[in-house]
C-alpha cells in the first residue's frame, strides 16, 4: 500500500486491479513499409465510487499514423485504485458531488498512463506496433484546468 504524505495532502491508496478492456491491431495496407511515426490520441476518464472507496481511471489510446489518416491500433486499460482514507481525502458536497484534490487526480492519471504504457508494450511487442512506445507526457497536461473535453 502506498502512502503519499506532505503538509496538506495525505493519501493512502493501493491498486486493486488493472484490466485490459480492449486491444486491437489494424495492419496497414503496405505491411512491408515500416511505420516509424505514430500519433497517440489519449483519452482519460476518471470515475469515483464513494461507497466502495474506489477510483477508476480508464485510459483509451488510439494509435494513428503520421498524418492521422489510418488507425493502426487501439488499447484501453482500466486502473482501479482503492483510496483507504477516502473520507478524509475526498469531501462530499451538499449536492452529492465529490470534491477531489487536484493533486490526487494528477497522481492517478500519471500512474495510469505509465501502466498503460507497459500494458501497451506488452500487448504490441513483436507486431508492427512494437516501436509504438507511448512517449513521456508532461504532467501539466493532466492538470484539471487543462481539460479540453467537458461533457
Amino acid at each position: 500500500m502506498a502512502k503519499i504524505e506532505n503538509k496538506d495532502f495525505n493519501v493512502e491508496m493501493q491498486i486493486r486491479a488493472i484490466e485490459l478492456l480492449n486491444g486491437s491491431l489494424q495492419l496497414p495496407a503496405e505491411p512491408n513499409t515500416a511505420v516509424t511515426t505514430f500519433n497517440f490520441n489519449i483519452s482519460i476518464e476518471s470515475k469515483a465510487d464513494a461507497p466502495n472507496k474506489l477510483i477508476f481511471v480508464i485510459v483509451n489510446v488510439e494509435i494513428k499514423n503520421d498524418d492521422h489518416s489510418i488507425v493502426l491500433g487501439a488499447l484501453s486499460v482500466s486502473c482501479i485504485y482503492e483510496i483507504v482514507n477516502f473520507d478524509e481525502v475526498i469531501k462530499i458536497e451538499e449536492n452529492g458531488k465529490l470534491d477531489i484534490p487536484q493533486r490526487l487526480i494528477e497522481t492517478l492519471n500519471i500512474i495510469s498512463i505509465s501502466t498503460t504504457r507497459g500494458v501497451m508494450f506488452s500487448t504490441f511487442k513483436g507486431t508492427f506496433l512494437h516501436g509504438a512506445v507511448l512517449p513521456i507526457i508532461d504532467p501539466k497536461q493532466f492538470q484539471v484546468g487543462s481539460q479540453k473535453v467537458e461533457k
Partner: protein
Amino acid sequence: MNKTTKARKYNSSKLQELLDEVTPLEMEQTKVKMQLAARIEDFMRAKGWNKSQFAEKAGKNPSEITKWFSGTQNFTTDVLTEIASTLGVELTALFGKKQVQVIYRNEIVVKSVATQPSIVMTTPMSQGIDVYGYCLLASQGNKLPFTKYYQA
C-alpha cells in the same frame, strides 16, 4: 406510572382485499413518488430552508410545496427541472445519489518517432534447450544497442 404506547398490528380482511387490488407497478409508482418527495425535502433542509422559504425561492404557493411533499404529486419533467434548479442540484440527484461519478475527463494527442526507440526487444527470441531439457533464451546482446551501458 408511565404508559407506553405500542404500534398496534391491525388485521382486516377488507384492508387486505384493498391491498390485493394494488398492482406491483402501482406500488412501485407510489414508492418512487414518496422517495422523490422525501429527497426534495432533504435537499430543502440541507439548504436550511423551511417550506415558506422554499416556496418563495421557487416562486410557488406554500400549499403547492405541501402537496409536493405529500408524496402523491405526479411531477412533470418541467416541474422537476424547476425544483432541481431552485435547489442548485442536478436533475438526476433528485432520483438518488449516483454510485459512480465522473470526476475527470481529458484528451491529449502526442506524437512519437520510432526511429531510435528506447526499448528494443526483438521477438521471437531464438531458443535453445540445455542438458536438463529446460528452455533457454539465447542472448540478444548483439541486438540490444543499450546493453553495453548497463552490463558490466
